[in-house]
């Protein structure tokens, strides 16, 4: 199987899930920090990949099927697609899907910890720390870029 197969977008039937529906309810529904859950999912996935944080919990709560996302969410879909190819290198779509969900919940655990400690999400600090962390993380991810 060629490496380009790994570069294919996520299956349209892929279901975005989480092991932390309460955290989603709090940040999305109650605190209204995000307009749609997929926005929180995307940010959490980015954090999870950045800090190489994978949750050990099994995601059980459905959020949205990727194919049902409208054009309005193209940006988030694109980010998820790119990160999905970083999250898992290989042809197995099921494993890739599992890796995405695990990273997204790992990132959510980090955000949730911060939210519980501070009572808020300090976005400027989160973005700033991400900028500082990426150079090291990119070195760690070099095997992915070599397509190994």
């Amino acid at each position: 199987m060629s490496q380009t197969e790994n570069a294919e977008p996520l299956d349209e039937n892929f279901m975005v899930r989480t092991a932390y529906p309460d955290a989603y309810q709090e940040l999305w529904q109650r605190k209204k920090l995000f307009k749609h859950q997929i926005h929180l999912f995307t940010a959490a996935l980015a954090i999870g990949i950045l800090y190489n944080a994978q949750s050990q919990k099994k995601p059980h709560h459905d959020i949205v099927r990727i194919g049902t996302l409208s054009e309005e969410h193209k940006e988030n879909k694109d980010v998820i697609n790119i990160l999905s190819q970083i999250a898992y290198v290989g042809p197995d779509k099921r494993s890739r899907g599992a890796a995405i969900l695990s990273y997204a919940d790992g990132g959510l655990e980090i955000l949730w910890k911060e939210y519980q400690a501070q009572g808020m999400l300090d976005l400027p600090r989160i973005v700033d720390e991400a900028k500082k962390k990426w150079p090291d993380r990119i070195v760690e991810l070099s095997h992915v870029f070599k397509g190994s």
Partner: protein
Amino acid sequence: MLENFRPFCSRHTIDLSIEKGRPVILVKALNDVGKTSLFKAIQFCLYGSKATGEKAFRHVNRTACTQNDGRTFVKLTFDHEEKLYEITRSVEFKKSPPGSFPDTSDEVLEVRVDGIPVKLESIREQNEYIEAILPEDASQFFLFDGEDIQKYTRYPPGEHVKEAIEMVLGIRELLNAREDIENISRELKHELDDLLVERSKHDQEAVAVDSLGREIADIRKRIEELDTRIGQARENVKSCDETLIKHVAIQAKIESRKQAEQNRDLLKEQIKTNENKIREFNRHLGVILVAPLLRELSRLGRKSVPHWKRAAIGAVLQSDFCICDRPIDPSIRERFERILDKDLGVSSLQYLGDQATELLFDTQPDALEKSLYEILAQRRDLESNLVLQEQTMADLNKEIGGREDLAADIKAAADTRQRAAADLEKYMVEKQAKEMDLETKSGEYGRRQAKLAEQFTDKDIEDKKAYLRSSDACETAVREAIDELVDKSKQKVAELASKVFLDLTNAPTLYQGIEITDEYELKIKTIGGTTRPVWDQSPSAGQSQIIATAYIAALNRYTAREAPVIVDTPIGRLDPIHKKNLIEYYPEIGPQVIILYQPSELSSEDIEPIAKYVSSEWLLERDPHNPDASIFRRIKGR
């Protein structure tokens, strides 16, 4: 010397004597250490606890009274009219449990002059003795709080202030003398009248003159009644004015609170809008967070073999011949295969790079990040403004209490004032008429009485006539002296107050000076030529303090009293120009100037210009062995 007075536990002595050419004593203390207590100690010693506005038990040191029964006292030692005075006022206290006030005895005043005790038995005698040294009413111009003196500029002066000013300038004594002579004169006239009636029992004219005398006495009585009523009406008007000023100030605060409420509601709306903006914006958080990764992917993608090249090489290698129909050289084939092998490993990277480049182009994460910071900065501004508004509202609520609208109260106070002012006007008019009547009838009475008296030449009548002439002459002389003194004093005080004010103010080009009316009301003369009462111009707190200081300085210069000037809170909230001017002026305000200040009012740089006038400098600080007590420490001087 103080013992067990307020924060001063046990005995403490502070030497406030001055050297020649160095009239200033500085006493520095943080808030709540005892600066104002030192000020109150002087008031207590001279005039008793009533002058401090607090009961005697409040002046007892709280630590001392929990230990044993004891005594609280303040002793002042000073030179006055070339004699050494020692004045001690004390109270005995009973031991009391912590947190409660002790029982105290009556205050005791002891006076020694050149070491010899002065016998002062009754409270009245004691008060009169101290009043002769420095009257309590006059002391307000010697012992004062720098911020509190603004009151002299806030309202038209009442009778009390007017009397105090007359006392300071020595006019009050003359006025008292005039009143005494008038009483003597009146008494003599009555006595002469009685003699004349007795001597000519059946003389119709004598009876008529006697009757006229009684009529005059009634008019005088009515004038006295009217004086009392006028005094009451003036007090009523003043009280209404004060109520009105208070109500209007609170009403203004109520309006400010309404405005603050509107601002708060607007800010809350804006914060809500901002929250929505942030929520809307957070759709981009993912792309902002991964922007560095996207840039790296885009860079790596560009470095790999482009798709078109890979496709072309793949197509060539499918045959043994090149597109030019010549066989492919084995070395070229090997090279092409190497490129494709390498490219096979990075084909997904190529794909990722393309995606990343496209996403970066579409979303411009740098611009998004900038927008995010702008929205968040706006949020911070809105939130801090909201905190400010809420703080403002809380402060206003504290001052306003539960009051919602004072328009009705203001109207009621204005109506009451109008009635009181009408009463005042009515009494004044009646008094004026009575005074005219009195003058006419007194003249007639004098003439008729003199004519009648000429008929009798016995010794008693001659003596009374002679006394009467003497007292009339005295009264005239005193009246003239008063008129002259009042005019001269006022003129001198106004001139000096103007000079000091122009030296101290931060806007000397706007003013010509200060004027003092017959009622001792202060008026400000502007360069434009207008003259308006100070209180009518609503000056700022700083400007009020400067005007009042100039007035007090001038009163002190021409006072008939000899006393040190003791200033608490000398600077208050003055701006830097007023502050500098005032500090440099203080050495001139009196022969001995004691300044009680806290460090934020005066720094060592501020004091530098007057350092050469300072005799000693004291620090008032908490006792390291007893945090509830304070001690003095000399930090400069002998």
